[in-house]
């Protein structure tokens, strides 16, 4: 069992970080937020609906309102940067004109415009993660879920990614982040939830990385 009686609420436009050692249950928790896994007991509420009772079609609609970013980037290897981002918009059923105007715009936001026609294997780790973030925000989601987004990155790229996430949060999107990185937590200076052995052991309004 990865999680044991976790309970927390995230308000709109919050920036919440989950910290804790490996195996504490952070990733499992985020998977439940995306309805990738279901709890044996308890509820995952988004606004006022329990996402575990959604039909698969409604889960698709829900996921289009939640942007996800992962440690291993998870870009589509056979699609270039433009197509990777466009895919999220196509999946959401957006018309071609919107895709053509929004993709370059969002790439500008993550500062990656020159690489628009490159394929993932031609990008550095930091660049891949910026594509992943661009894909996550292009449908203007209510929430961004980022599972160790800086886990595979060097300090300079880590700093950039955190700045981008903060910028997104300032534009009004709720951000839920997990990380191992003390520097990341300290530089964000927002709410921190500390987990251990599947339980929440601390919940600080302006937390520091304490273990």
């Amino acid at each position, binding site marked *: 069992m990865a999680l044991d009686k976790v309970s927390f609420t995230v308000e709109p436009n919050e920036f919440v970080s989950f910290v804790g050692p490996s195996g504490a249950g952070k990733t499992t928790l985020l998977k439940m937020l*995306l309805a*990738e896994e279901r709890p044996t007991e308890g509820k995952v509420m988004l606004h006022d609906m329990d996402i575990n009772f959604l039909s*698969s*079609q409604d*889960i*698709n*609609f*829900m*996921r*289009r309102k939640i942007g*996800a970013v992962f440690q291993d980037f*998870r*870009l*589509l*290897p*056979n*699609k270039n940067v433009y*197509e990777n981002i466009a*895919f*999220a918009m*196509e*999946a*959401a*059923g*957006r*018309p*071609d004109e919107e895709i053509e105007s929004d993709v370059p715009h969002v790439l500008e936001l993550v500062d990656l415009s020159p690489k628009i026609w490159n394929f993932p294997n031609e990008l550095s780790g930091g660049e891949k993660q910026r594509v992943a973030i661009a*894909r996550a925000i292009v*449908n203007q989601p209510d929430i961004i879920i980022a599972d160790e987004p800086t886990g595979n990155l060097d300090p300079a790229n880590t700093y950039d990614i955190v700045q981008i996430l903060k910028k997104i949060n300032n534009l009004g999107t709720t951000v839920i982040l997990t990380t191992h990185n003390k520097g990341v937590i300290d530089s964000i200076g927002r709410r921190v939830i500390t987990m251990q052995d599947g339980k929440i052991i601390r919940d600080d309004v302006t937390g520091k990385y304490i273990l």
Partner: protein
Amino acid sequence: MEKVEFKTKLKRVSKAGFFNFWRSGYVSLASVLVMVVTLLVIGSVIFISAVLNITMEELRNKVDINVYFITTSQEKDILSIKTKIESLPEVSNVEYISREKALENFRLRHENDQITLQALDELGDNPLGATLNIKAKEPSQYEGVANFLNEENILSSDGSKIIDKINYFENRTAIDKLSRIINSAEHLGLVLSLALVVVSIIITFNTIRLTIYISREEISVMQLVGASKNYVKGPFVVTGVLVGLISGLITMLLFLPISYWLGGMTENFFIGFNIFSYYLSNFFQILFIVVGSGIAIGAVSSFLAVRKYLKL
């Protein structure tokens, strides 16, 4: 929420499928190669069954019953027997060869054999009786026809026996054996080719499954981004269709030199059957079967394989 119409979706799915095929390079090549082998098997089955059918037809046409009449029988009696035999449901046609015609055929057959012809001239009279050559619709029906002729004590109008002999009873064992061979060859051919086709379809299916196994991560990412099941499946099915289409066209091209090369051989072996001219004259039918099978196998395999990696 969904603002785009079906046409746009179809365009996006086809485009994604095409790019997926093109950018996967070696993986697509591998699927095409395996698919070509399968389609070659399916195509060969078409050719083999054509060869078999035509050979069977030839053999069947060679089997007949000859009824020999005594030399003194009247033509009108023979013709009345002919109409009787023709009315049997098993009989497909009856040929009457008069005494004069039989003699003419005999002379023609022996035109280089002076001694025989001299002996014939010595006789003065025509020693040959008239014959009826009977062909049944199926080889197995000769027995019935022969028995009919035997039981029906066929007599002339004045009551004397006019049939000299019926050669069925001499040829009987040969005819029996032949019809058994024909039947079992057809069954064996059908079972063998079906087995081959099934085996190669399974191999192709597994190859396509492997290519999609490579993409299982992608499939889960697509779903995490919120793509609907059909939107994830679509491009893979399009890729499968493309593999089938391209393999089908390659197979048809390969059959051109293969059947040309085999054409001369089959012409000598199976009298009058040239596999190359069969290929050319049935080109569109074969194209339809080969390309159609390719597309169907590709699409169905992809569809089933993607389904396995879809969650929700």
